[in-house]
Each structure stands twice: as structure tokens, then as C-alpha cells.
């Protein structure tokens, strides 16, 4: 495995809290993989995300991005350029009042040549399917569209890693679908490493790897097919189980013998159909 991010025994506490928000987290993220991080409120998943591009610095342990230590102030911009971050509320991360000017913000900050900025802005907007809206005002776009503009704004830095901190929490179902498909395509087609913080199981089910956090620690870590069938464990952590897994587990409890790894609706339906045939 070629890790793009290495998290080594990281501990962090917020100043006004007696319980650590992160408590000895150690993990590697493979380059080009799609990782979902799950956890109930207060599990430390957002705190974890903020460590990946040096918004927060570990109290103990260290975070390495492409071998750059996030604690080193000199490497700050190099790290931020490699690890792009998208937040929950799209309104609060768009700076300019024209879509393309907003997408140009990051490369302008980095001092990229004007012609190259133009190329990156057009490329990023095409990748998220917002090129036709490049001259629109952001406040007239839908939530899903705004969030895709925010993603394009980060893509214009040409990052290695895209960290998304609950990007769909404020969106309607249609917006959620738009954003998750966009992110998935970026990972599959462009080879960008995606770390998606979410509490939607169906989004996590599309990832290569699911990390479940609980009270600042990694509780479960594995492929979706390994993690989701542990329904009792997930419920104990205040999480739900994807509907497909739930159905399969209940059918199995009723005497059927279905494979628990069928996560998509199609795979689930095929498995049930096969068992009934």
C-alpha cells in the first residue's frame, strides 16, 4: 500500500473539554482510495478530519501527508494544497459572487499564472458538472450545485486528497445524490483520494473502506462488506445499518442463507432472487 496520509497515535483534546476528542488514533490512507468515516455525534470524526490538513495539530502523535508533518509550520501551504477540505455549509465557503471567480480563489492565492488558472477553473467546473453555470451568482444555485462549486473550488488546487466533512448534511436527497456521485467519480476516474465524513450509511456503502469512530477511537475498520454486517456493534455505537444489510440480516435470522456482503439495492435484490429461485 502506498499511503498518502499516515496518522500515528494522534491524541487531541479541545481546551474546554476534559475528555479527549481523539484518543490514540492510528491509521493509513491508501493513495487513490475512497474512505468513509462514520460515527455518531461527538465521536471525533470531524476532529479527525481537521487534523488532515493542519487546521488542528495533534497534542501527541503526528500526521504525515506525503511525508510532510502537519506540525511543521513551513509546510503548511504545501499540506493545504495537497489536502483539500470541503465543509458542511456550502454558503459559508464560497467567497466570490460569480461561480468562476470563486473557483479561481485558491489558485490565485497560490500565485498560479493567469492562463493556468483559467485552465484549472474550467477543468474543475467540468469535473463537477457545473461548467454551464460558471457565470452565475452562487446564491441563485441549489444546495447541491453550491456544494459542487465548493468542491470545484478545492479541485482547482489540484489536491491529492479531498476531505469532505459531512458535505451532504444540509442538502435535500437530490443534492445528496449529486454530490456523492461527483465525489465518487473524482475518486474512480481521476484517482483523487477521497475521505468522506458522513452519517449516511448509503453514502458510506459506496466507499472502499469504512472507518467507524467512537469516543475518539477507531471502533471498526474494514470494507463495507466487512463492517456493515456487524449490525449489533453498529447499533451499540448509535449508528444504523444500511437498509439492504438490515433486510438480509433479518431474512437470514428467519432462516435464509444470504451473503451479507450485498450492499447495493441491485446486489441485494439479485441475492434474494437467487436464493428464491
Amino acid at each position, binding site marked *: 500500500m502506498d499511503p498518502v496520509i499516515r496518522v500515528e497515535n494522534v491524541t487531541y483534546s479541545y481546551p474546554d473539554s476534559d475528555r479527549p476528542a481523539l484518543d490514540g488514533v492510528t491509521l493509513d490512507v491508501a493513495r487513490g482510495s475512497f474512505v468513509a468515516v462514520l460515527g455518531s455525534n461527538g465521536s471525533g470524526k470531524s476532529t479527525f478530519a481537521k487534523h488532515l490538513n493542519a487546521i488542528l495539530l495533534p497534542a501527541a502523535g503526528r500526521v504525515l501527508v506525503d511525508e510532510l508533518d502537519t506540525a511543521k509550520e513551513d509546510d503548511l501551504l504545501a499540506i493545504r494544497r495537497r489536502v483539500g477540505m470541503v465543509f458542511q455549509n456550502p454558503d459559508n465557503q464560497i467567497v466570490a459572487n460569480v461561480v468562476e471567480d470563486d473557483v479561481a480563489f485558491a489558485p*490565485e492565492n497560490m500565485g498560479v499564472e493567469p492562463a493556468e*488558472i483559467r485552465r484549472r*477553473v474550467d477543468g474543475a467546473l467540468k469535473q463537477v458538472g457545473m461548467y454551464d453555470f460558471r457565470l452565475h451568482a452562487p446564491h441563485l444555485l441549489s444546495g447541491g450545485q453550491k456544494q459542487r462549486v465548493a468542491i470545484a473550488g478545492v479541485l482547482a*488546487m489540484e489536491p491529492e486528497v479531498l476531505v469532505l466533512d459531512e458535505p451532504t448534511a444540509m442538502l435535500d436527497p437530490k443534492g445528496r445524490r449529486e454530490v456523492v456521485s461527483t465525489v465518487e467519480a473524482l475518486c474512480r476516474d481521476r484517482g483523487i483520494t477521497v475521505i468522506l465524513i458522513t452519517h449516511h450509511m448509503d453514502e458510506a456503502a459506496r466507499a472502499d473502506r469504512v472507518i467507524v469512530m467512537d469516543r475518539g477511537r477507531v471502533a471498526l475498520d474494514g470494507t463495507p462488506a466487512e463492517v456493515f454486517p456487524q449490525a449489533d456493534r453498529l447499533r451499540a455505537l448509535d449508528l444504523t445499518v444500511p437498509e439492504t444489510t438490515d433486510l438480509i440480516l433479518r431474512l437470514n435470522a428467519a432462516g435464509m442463507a444470504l451473503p451479507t456482503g450485498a450492499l447495493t439495492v441491485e446486489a441485494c435484490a439479485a441475492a434474494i432472487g437467487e436464493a428464491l429461485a
Partner: protein
Amino acid sequence: MLKDITLGQYFPGDTPVHRLDPRTKLLLTVFYIIALFTVGSWGGYALCIAALGAVMTVSHIRPGALLRGLKPLVFIIVFTAALNLFFTTGDDYLFRWRSIKISYAGLERAAAMVLRILLLVSGTFLLTYTTSPLAITDGLERLLSPLKKLHVPVYELSLMMCIALRFIPLLIEETDRIMSAQKARGADLETGTLPERARALMPLLIPLFVSSFRRADELALAMECRCYNGGEGRTRMKQLHMAGRDAVAFCLGGALMAGILLLRRLGI
């Protein structure tokens, strides 16, 4: 209801005036204001009106749009006119009744002042009608960039303006939402005496302030994540270019100034 508020309204278009470099338009507006104050004869005002009319024709701005913009100024205009009308002393009086008297000189002066205000405001409106707020910000930043040597944070100021413009519609939307929420809980924002109504605004302003601070916090974080570290070493995607039409515009501005001075000399 609050959505109807417009600040520095911009009418998108693709006329020669719209295509002018924002720096040209800013400088010419300043030039036009100076010209207005050097006008010393009625002929000069006629020339200014003609110039304004020409710009309006070329930029396809309808007089109606301009008049709508002038509406909020009615009070100031009437006030200025009255002040000049009643308090200018002269030799010949048009009207005298007890201590109220109107002189011919006062009438002339009031007319000139009103005309001057109307022309001044109309001219600046034409700037904002034909130039997007972003272009104005951009133009201002470039024009003021020599001040960077005096450590004036020109880039930061223009970024602040840009962000303010971006967040105005959001804050208006939010105010609408908070108003609805407070009304749903029985808040009465429309009736009562002025102090009562001012007090009723508190439950509106406090949530608005709190959420603005939260927004600012999140925006600052998002900007840092996008490698923002001040104006130094920054490049721009859109470069401003002066073109032939900008030279033409400057020549026309110069001609206007020369015309006004000539008419003043001739006393027409």
C-alpha cells in the same frame, strides 16, 4: 419582501459602455463629477445633460431605470431647492409676503443646485448600472494599488468589499427567515409606537449577529483551507486590459471638460 432591496444595481449588457475597462469608467466618473462642479453657465449644464443622454443611449439604460433610482432622493432634492429658494438674497424679488421672499437669484440658484444633484447622482448610477460590483471592486483595487507602497492594505479592502457583496443576499435571506420564525412565535414587528417597534427588532438582530459571526468563522476557515495567506504573491485569473475604446472614452471625457470650460468663458 426584503429580497427587493438592491444595492448598486447592475443591468448586464454587452454595449461599448459595458465593455469599457472598469478603471476607465471609475476615472471618467470622477472626471465627470469634477466637470459638474466647474460648470459655470447654463450651456455647461446642457452639455452635461447631452453627455449623460449619449451614454444612456449607447448603454441602453432606459430613463425609467434612472428615475426609479432617483426616487429615494426626492427629500434631499426638495430640501436643497427650498433652502436655496428662500434663503438667497437678491435685488429683484419675484414674490414677497411678510418675511417670506423669493428672489430671481434664488430661483436660478435653486434650479442650478437641483440640476447639479440630479446630474451627479445620475452619473454615478450609470457607473453602477453598467459595471458589475465585482468589476468595480477590481478596478478600484488596481487604481489604488500605488497605495500599497504606503502599506495601505488595498487587496484586503477589496476582498472585504467582495465578501460583503457576496453575503448581502445571504443575510437578507436569513433576516427573512428569522422574521418568519419570530412572527410564528407571536412577535409583532409591524404595529406599535416607534420605540416599541425598535425594541421588537432586538429578537431579530441578535440571532442575525450571532449567525453572522458563525458564518465569518467558517468562511475564514474555508479560506485558509484554500491557501489564503494575504494579498502578497497573489495572481489574478482575469487581467484588465485597456483597449482602443478606453482611449476614445478618455478623449470624449476631455472634450466634455473642454466644452464646459469654453462655455464658462463665453458665459453661455
